[in-house]
């Protein structure tokens, strides 16, 4: 390149840098909206396609409400990316969002987006939710969301098969393990559980109270794969993985689904919504066969505790021009009895849950009414699993280390500590100190 051209090139490059610098000037970081709340300002709502009808129902029953609704992909990181772009450019934040455990991340740096609802939602309403929901939504003493549904785990079983084989429903995890051994010996190919997806982490590990996501304070979290509540799950499941009674697969892997359609699924502890949304449509368990039992109990405990596989929450943003309007929407969506009792999932608001159960009690698909079990287990969700700022690592990390590890025939006693190490790192990256 001759000198002339080189100078030109250098000039172009510096021009580019100047232009780029101009970009940096625009946008204030997490800009504050100085304007006073405007009760007529529109409320910008982002929900996924499944939640769309709920918001539309609100619009229909509240024609004066000014709602601007957009459907967004149900994709991890979508809301975070858009909020962060909004932070950098000073515009474009949503006011109400449907999300999950990410609420903790959205409340903190660098997003600083979620807003406390305490000034806009009465304490009575908040008290009407199940304890686990209130815990989920409370960060540093303030309420940052209202939970839409809970997915308490229950012990699903195929009553017809169980009766045919002459087995009893296990009441303790020891019984469960013994049942697994019997099934492996007498009826190989049949399964009583699965471990190959992050949903099963909540089912077994959370139900046991294994501290992998225990928030002590806003800056301290307890992660300890060596705790007895964790190792007892490893000791329970490892022999069952080895004898094949607990599948190494994801319950939604086509190969596991085939077990279901082949009627080889004897039992599966899983979320309350699994009856209608896994067993019926996907595993195709015949009508009149499926029943729900309480979760088995650990030695030393009299009741069987549950985990929670999911459960969405509605969150309000700090930049809402109409915070009361936003909060009213959120309150209605989670507490309106007529709306919630028609939802596919178990409501997190207790009065709505009662109505939901009453509507479901006569569902002829089940061998016996599962709703009493749902109701009991809803109160028994382990409270030492909380929403953390590293929630996405909890899900992805489990898939990557444990679920994939058991496919490669790794041992749970090795995989879980490795998983805990990933969690330690993620916790520290998001501003927690890790205690044992």
């Amino acid at each position, binding site marked *: 390149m001759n000198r002339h051209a080189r100078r030109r090139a250098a000039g172009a490059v510096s021009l580019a840098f100047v232009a780029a610098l101009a970009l940096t000037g625009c946008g204030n970081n997490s800009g504050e909206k100085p304007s006073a709340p405007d009760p007529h300002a529109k409320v910008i709502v982002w929900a996924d396609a499944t939640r769309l009808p709920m918001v539309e129902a609100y619009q229909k029953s509240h024609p004066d409400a000014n709602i601007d609704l957009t459907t967004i992909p149900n994709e*991890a990181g979508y809301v975070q990316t858009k909020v962060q772009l909004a932070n950098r450019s000073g515009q474009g934040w949503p006011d109400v969002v449907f999300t999950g455990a990410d609420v903790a991340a959205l409340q903190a740096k660098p997003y600083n987006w979620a807003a406390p609802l305490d000034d806009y939602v009465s304490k009575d309403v908040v008290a009407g939710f199940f304890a686990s929901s209130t815990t989920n939504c409370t960060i540093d003493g303030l309420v940052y969301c209202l939970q839409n549904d809970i997915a308490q785990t229950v012990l699903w079983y195929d009553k017809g098969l169980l009766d045919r084989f002459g087995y009893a429903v296990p009441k303790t995890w020891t019984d469960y393990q013994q049942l697994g051994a019997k099934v492996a010996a007498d009826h190989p190919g049949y399964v009583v559980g699965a471990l190959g997806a992050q949903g099963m982490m909540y089912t077994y590990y959370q139900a046991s109270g294994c501290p992998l996501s225990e928030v002590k304070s806003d800056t301290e979290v307890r992660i300890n794969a060596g705790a007895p509540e964790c190792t007892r799950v490893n000791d329970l499941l490892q022999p069952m993985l080895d004898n094949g009674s607990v599948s190494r697969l994801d319950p939604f892997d086509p190969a596991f689904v085939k077990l279901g359609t082949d009627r080889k699924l004897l039992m599966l502890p899983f979320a309350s919504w699994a009856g209608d949304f896994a067993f019926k449509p996907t595993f195709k368990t015949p009508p009149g066969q499926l029943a729900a039992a309480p979760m088995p109990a650990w030695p030393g405990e009299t009741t069987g505790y549950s985990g929670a596989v999911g459960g969405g929450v509605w969150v309000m943003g700090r930049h809402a021009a109409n915070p009361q309007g936003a909060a009213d929407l959120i309150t209605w969506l989670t507490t309106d009895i007529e709306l919630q009792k028609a939802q596919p999932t178990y409501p997190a608001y207790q009065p709505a849950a009662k109505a939901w159960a009453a509507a479901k009690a006569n569902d002829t698909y089940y061998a016996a009414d599962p709703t009493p079990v749902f109701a009991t287990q809803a109160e028994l969700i382990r409270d030492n699993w909380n929403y953390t700022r590293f929630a996405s690592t909890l899900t992805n990390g489990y898939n990557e280390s444990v679920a*994939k590890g058991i*496919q490669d025939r790794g041992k749970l006693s090795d995989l879980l500590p490795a998983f805990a190490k990933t969690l330690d790192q993620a916790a520290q990256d998001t501003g927690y100190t890790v205690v044992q």
Partner: protein
Amino acid sequence: MTSNSRVRPDRAAPYLLIAPYVLFLVLFGVVPTAYAVWVSLRTQEDTFAGARNWVAVFTDERLLPSVVNVGSYLGMWLPTMLLLVTGLSLVAHQRGGRVSQVSRFLWYVPGAVTGAAAALLWLFMLSPGISPFSPLLELAGVRSGSDLLAGHGLAMVLTLMGAMITAGGWIVVVYAALNSVPEEVIEAARVDGAGPWQVAWRVKVPHIRPQLALMLISSFAYGTQIFVEPQVLRSAFPSQVSQTWSVNQLAYFFATERGDFGMAAALSLLLLAAGLLVAVLVVARTDLYATEARKG
């Protein structure tokens, strides 16, 4: 009009012709790239960070596994791609006619399926029992999709996906280039007694070296930046494919779930550097910028 000297072209002409493109090049290419360099030196609160993002990227424990993954993928996919594309293009060009035309269309077809559509497609294709390829899968002893993706299976499946998705497009480019090989040169070689494979190797391939060079540069960049295939496979098999399997996925993860544009920019620039290294080498070796080495 002078008879011996060449008429000098208007000096402003090339600039006028290239101006609209250069505007877009600056707006959507150069400025964002310069900004990415800037952002890699800033914190999430937009204060000066110095080398902190770069250090954080280099010391992130997910970086090394993702680099190893991409390396093993590249080692399998790049040679497969080059051989497949060159080979199929030459065979198609030599065969000519309807068969060649139909084949080129069919090779392109899988590449048209992207995103959510591709996730659905590959979920079914890789699951024994419901896939049309079940006999093949069963022959290979695969019992489930998750089985297939265990261990080294993942890199092999991604290679297969990558080849099926990108080969068709490249065949189109290479074929078009082969069409520009002058008929007389091919005829002359045939008259000299060259068989079809010698014609291909001695005449056609050298003629399309620029297109092959472009393909090499592009494919290397695509391979090192692999993103779409693992993401697609991930929505179909979430337990089997990591969210940060490839380096580009890791960069995307930093940008989206960590809200850390600085680290995303730093990692992306590293990827850019790797791609540029190869690009510079290829450009130099094939003299891609030369306008003197011309035919006709």
